[in-house]
């Protein structure tokens, strides 16, 4: 026999395996507990990791440039004379972009095609199928969104505007924009040299340059100098990698933040479950522990044995749970990433992450068991043989019926009962939170009111026709609404959205004022808390904005508002300065309707004025698919947590039944059948579920929701509210859990010979 630590470890493992084999039929419950907890962790970890890192992964694979500059057509050498002088510049690549190019393939048509003619070595996109362009003029690489939507593959043909058919040689992905059809446009890449050869023409002017910084942390310097030396270059607009990330993640940032936050909640929940399971196991095996101690086993040996057994039980269960969780989350996650032009993680990376989680879960299970065993092993063997820490009076007859008796059975051990109710309540509260968030996503998609918008329709009419629109029955107010995408002039990678109304904007949009006051003049701005935090603004400071124009704009910040739109990166201003900077600025009329207004009548009124009304959606109204996928993800997590709830409940019943085997056996001896046992156990389950459900409502409403709002969207008031329907759904699920758990436990009890239970009661 091997001596030393290894020998001791080996002996412990041998003992543990022998013990587990002997109790093969009784390890199902801890296995299910670990499995359920791991399942939650697997889903959440997979989804959170994939969503949180999707942009970086795609950007890395696509070699996304640090800066993308668009401008009016210029001779390549003219632009390059400026660009090559920029500091911190590693590489540059020029393109010619043609917009509104009709595309057609497989009977599908699209007017809003975008053709990018590229030649430089660095592309800024990743070829995910087929190969890249060579120098033939009849080859095309198409974006992944178009390939997916039109079911195109390398080898197919696509008609590219007047150029005619081209053979698709590859499918590319670039996270510098969301994918078609989430984006209205679809991108096709052609070879510059090939095109020149095919058309027999000279070189094209360029209107787009990709810049790669040597040090990404100093992209702002590169960008600042690029802007400063642009001189007479017309129509110059910059997009940065950081800005792209912000823009792209505005659609999913809320959910990613939530999932990351929820991963911690889930980990805590799993810890609670594992701890409860471990205590149960130790409790159940107190007599055996007493015997071991009585024959001379040290407390340390007992602890090591329990820990080893828990680890051995947890290892396969955790592996299965994590793997299943990962597999379940993979589909919805991929569907959430695809519209964003982001990539799902490599299987190997995910496997490493889940392996890390597996180690954590197994270690947690072992530690929880060891901790519980430590407490038990330090009691005298005689006390352990008498029932250890089991206390409380035995059941006093069947007064109040079997259901009440069941309730008293489960509540006999008050500390454990309370902890069980707490665990179940926490899990149920999380389920409620997830359902509320899924509803919120739906509201963001469909309901403008969620974003603080108080207008319901827009109509493309000139500003001076607002009085005519207001004269339409059912229209309370109408005013032009201007919205402009811009960047902060002090942090050019920080995108923001300028929203302007003449006069009081709160008639149409009224995000809550967190600090300062409402704007009163052309030089003032109310900024969203998200923007204020991103660029360090406060009341009294200056908001410097670079709109898509040659000159910047300045506004004095007079108020900070809690706006949900665009993660709070918005600023409300008056339109005069915007119009001065951008003479072509146009905006639709926003219409606020009377309550209960007849929309059809309003539509007819607008039609008489030559306009078609457009219903207002949420801020991310165009991200329907994305939001649906994210909501599906949340519901999946809610489902897995519900499984945890059911598992906890079943475990509680099993524990209560095990502790009262004698009493149950006596009832059975007195004629209680399976139905009576189900009533008994149903009462026990109800005693756990009903207070847990009440506590869950309190927890969700007063703790989880507020904390989540603060954690996930500190820049806005997140309207997280659980509906009555969701509460009803939860109660229904719990009721089903009661029934299922009761039936399952009753069946297990009914299988056991009555004599065995009676014998235990005598002992």
């Amino acid at each position, binding site marked *: 026999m091997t001596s030393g630590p290894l020998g001791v470890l080996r002996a412990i493992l041998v003992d543990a395996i022998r013990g587990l084999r002997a109790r093969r039929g009784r390890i199902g419950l801890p296995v299910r507990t670990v499995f359920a907890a791991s399942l939650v962790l697997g889903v959440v970890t997979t989804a959170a990791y994939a969503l949180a890192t999707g942009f970086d992964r795609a950007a890395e694979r696509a070699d996304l440039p640090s800066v993308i500059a668009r401008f009016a057509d210029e001779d390549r050498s003219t632009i390059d*004379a*400026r660009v*090559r*002088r*920029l*500091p*911190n*510049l*590693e590489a540059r690549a020029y393109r010619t972009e043609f917009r509104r190019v009709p595309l057609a393939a497989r009977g599908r048509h699209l007017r809003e095609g975008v053709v990018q003619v590229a030649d430089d070595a660095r592309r800024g996109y990743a070829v995910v199928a087929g190969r890249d362009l060579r120098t033939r003029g009849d080859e095309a690489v198409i974006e992944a969104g178009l390939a997916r939507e039109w079911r195109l593959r390398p080898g197919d043909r696509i008609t590219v505007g007047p150029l005619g058919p081209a053979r698709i040689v590859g499918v590319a992905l670039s996270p510098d924009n969301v994918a078609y059809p989430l984006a209205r446009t679809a991108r096709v890449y052609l070879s510059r040299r090939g095109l020149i050869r095919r058309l027999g023409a000279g070189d094209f002017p360029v209107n787009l340059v990709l810049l790669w*910084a*040597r*040090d990404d942390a*100093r992209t*702002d*310097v*590169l*960008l*600042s*100098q*690029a*802007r*400063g*030396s*642009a*001189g*007479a270059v017309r129509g110059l607009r910059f997009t940065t990698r950081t800005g792209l990330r912000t823009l792209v993640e505005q659609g999913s940032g809320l959910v990613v933040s939530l999932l990351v936050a929820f991963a911690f909640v889930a980990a805590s929940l799993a810890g609670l479950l594992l701890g409860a399971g471990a205590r149960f196991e130790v409790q159940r095996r107190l007599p055996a522990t007493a015997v071991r101690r009585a024959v001379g086993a040290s407390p340390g040996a007992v602890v090591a044995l329990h820990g080893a057994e828990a680890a051995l039980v947890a290892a396969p269960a955790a592996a299965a749970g994590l793997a299943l969780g990962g597999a379940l989350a993979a589909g919805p996650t991929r569907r959430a990433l695809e519209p964003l032009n982001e990539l799902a993680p490599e299987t190997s990376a995910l496997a490493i992450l889940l392996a890390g989680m597996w180690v954590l879960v197994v270690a947690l299970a072992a530690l929880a068991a060891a901790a519980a065993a430590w407490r038990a092993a330090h009691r005298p063997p005689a006390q352990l043989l008498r029932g250890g820490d089991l206390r409380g009076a035995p059941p006093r007859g069947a007064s109040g019926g079997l259901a009440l008796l069941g309730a008293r059975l489960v509540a006999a051990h008050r500390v454990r009962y309370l902890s069980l109710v707490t665990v179940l309540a926490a899990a149920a509260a999380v389920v409620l939170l997830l359902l509320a968030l899924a509803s919120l996503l739906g509201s963001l998609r469909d309901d403008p009111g969620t974003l603080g918008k108080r207008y319901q329709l827009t109509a493309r009419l000139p500003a001076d026709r607002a009085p005519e629109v207001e004269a339409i029955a059912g229209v309370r107010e109408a005013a032009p609404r201007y919205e402009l995408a811009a960047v902060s*002039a*002090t942090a*050019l990678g920080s995108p923001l959205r300028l929203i302007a109304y003449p006069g009081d904007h709160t008639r149409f949009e009224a995000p809550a004022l967190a600090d300062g006051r409402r704007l009163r003049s052309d030089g003032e701005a109310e900024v969203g808390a998200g923007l204020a935090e991103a660029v360090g603004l406060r009341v009294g400071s*200056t908001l*410097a904005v*670079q709109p898509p124009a*040659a*000159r*910047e*704009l*300045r506004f004095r910040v007079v108020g900070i508002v809690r706006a949900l739109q665009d993660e709070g990166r918005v600023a409300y201003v008056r339109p005069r300065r915007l119009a001065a900077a951008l003479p072509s600025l146009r905006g639709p009329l926003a219409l606020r309707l009377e309550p209960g207004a007849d929309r059809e009548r309003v539509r007819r009124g607008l039609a008489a004025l030559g306009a078609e009304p457009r219903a207002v959606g949420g801020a991310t109204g165009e991200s329907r698919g994305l939001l649906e996928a994210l909501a599906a993800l949340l519901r999946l997590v809610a489902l897995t947590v519900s499984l945890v709830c059911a598992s906890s409940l079943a475990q509680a019943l099993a524990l209560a039944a095990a502790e009262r085997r004698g009493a149950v056996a006596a009832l059975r001896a007195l004629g209680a059948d399976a139905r009576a046992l189900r009533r008994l156990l149903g009462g026990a389950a109800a005693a756990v579920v009903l207070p847990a459900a009440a506590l869950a409502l309190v927890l969700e409403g007063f703790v989880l929701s507020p904390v989540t709002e603060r954690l996930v969207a500190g820049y806005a008031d997140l309207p997280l509210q659980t509906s009555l329907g969701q509460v009803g759904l939860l109660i229904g699920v719990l009721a089903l859990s009661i029934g299922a758990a009761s039936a399952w436990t009753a069946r297990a009890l009914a299988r056991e010979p009555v004599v065995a239970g009676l014998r235990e009661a005598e002992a």
Partner: protein
Amino acid sequence: MSAGRPEGHTRREALALLGGGVIWALGGCGPEPRPGSTLLRSLVDPDGDALLESGPGVSLQDRRELGGGGRPERVLGRIAQISDVHVRDAQSPARVPFLDRVGTRLGSAFRPHELLTSQLLAATVASVNGWRGADAVLVSGDLIDSAQRNELDWALALLGGGTAVPDSGAAGYEGVQAPSNPDPLYYRPDVDAPRYPGLLNRALRPVRSRGLKAPWWPVLGNHDVLVQGELAASPAITAVATGDRLITSPNAEIARLAGGGSLNRGQVEALLQGGLPGDALPVSPDPRRTHLTAEEAVARLVGAASGSPATRDGRLDYSFGVGSELQIVVLDLVQREAGSGGIVTPSTLSFLADALDATSGRHIIVTSHQPLDATAGAEAVFALLDSDPRVIAVVAGHTHRNRIEARGSGAGGYWHITTASIVDFPQQWRALRVVATSGGGVAIETWMVDHAGRPNDGNDLAGIGRDLAFLDPQGGRPAHAAGPRRARNVRLHLPRRPRRPPRRQPRLPAPSAPSRPPAFGAGDTLD
């Protein structure tokens, strides 16, 4: 002191290089020493992230295109050359920073670090003073930027030792770099990256300088006497300078005229008569911004220089000796009416001939602001210099870039040395050491020296000035103004030659006149 044994410089250089290497290798073990001689350490950007950091020293490279090549034995003279400082009143309404956007041809109209030129000069003076053996300091033109009285006041105070307050108008900054200016074509340190909040106010605080320890000698530059280095002041132009309206962006017509290079004095005066059209900032008027006439500028330089320069026919043509074996001949090639390019006047040519005749038994270095090979009428000057075996070098500035070329001639040839500016990157001055070599030859050892500003130090304004100059897309970094190693740290050999004047024709050829009027803006701009 110029004669005597050289300080065993070959060995010393080796030790210095070794020491520099050790210091560089141990970088980070203590406070970063101030930059200085590039023989010891140089400022480099090895990873291309636009951040300067200390690199190894650069040893002298021997150049023997003109022959010679002996071992250095004896120092004949040490000269520090500071060129093109362009001390600028960045708040002056007579400036034309808006022309910068027209293109690189007018790229020096605005510099991101233009408010820090006084600090750069002070840091340069400190660095020159660190070269203990300097016999003379040659300030080779464009000491100031736009011929303004206050600019010259500041520059002379810093060269002579004293305090300059580089502020004009009302106290505080009023100019195109203010954060309230919404025009992103100007670098605004409170808004744009790299951000230096509060830099504008810090740059206007008093700048102190101990003054040059060695005697300094001025060379006249076009920016010292011409507005923006291009045009002589007129009452209308001076009225703009002392006025209260600073144009920030011109109207399209001005941009077109300036961009086409067709702007002439008549057009400028006509534009000024109606008031310059375009967006403008209101600024506080200041009579200290009055322009200097060429005579005033020359007189003030002569009066302030710690050497003893002289004038002839109103031009800053003079000669002075360094030790007993070296003579410096200073030529004034600046046009007095308009144009940044150099011109050789009959007076200057006559002075040169006289100065050469008057020199006996010495090696001669001729210096001017504009390089001779880009100067109208320089053929006659070359005719004189090419025939004189005592001429060992022609030293100039103006182009803001380092360049060293050999010019062979029947008399043995000489070196054309052009030195980069203090205002644009690399912001270095040139050390020149003339040595006698074994075998009877002579050599000019020259190397570049950084000013004392520390890179990447937000508290060092001169350092910030260099950092910003390094980033400037229109500046010396992309223009490679530092030049190749062979234009920086070199030992320029010359063969043994007689030190007596050549036989010369009694009548000098007249310098040829410029074939066409000078074009504005085509002068001392990096491209």
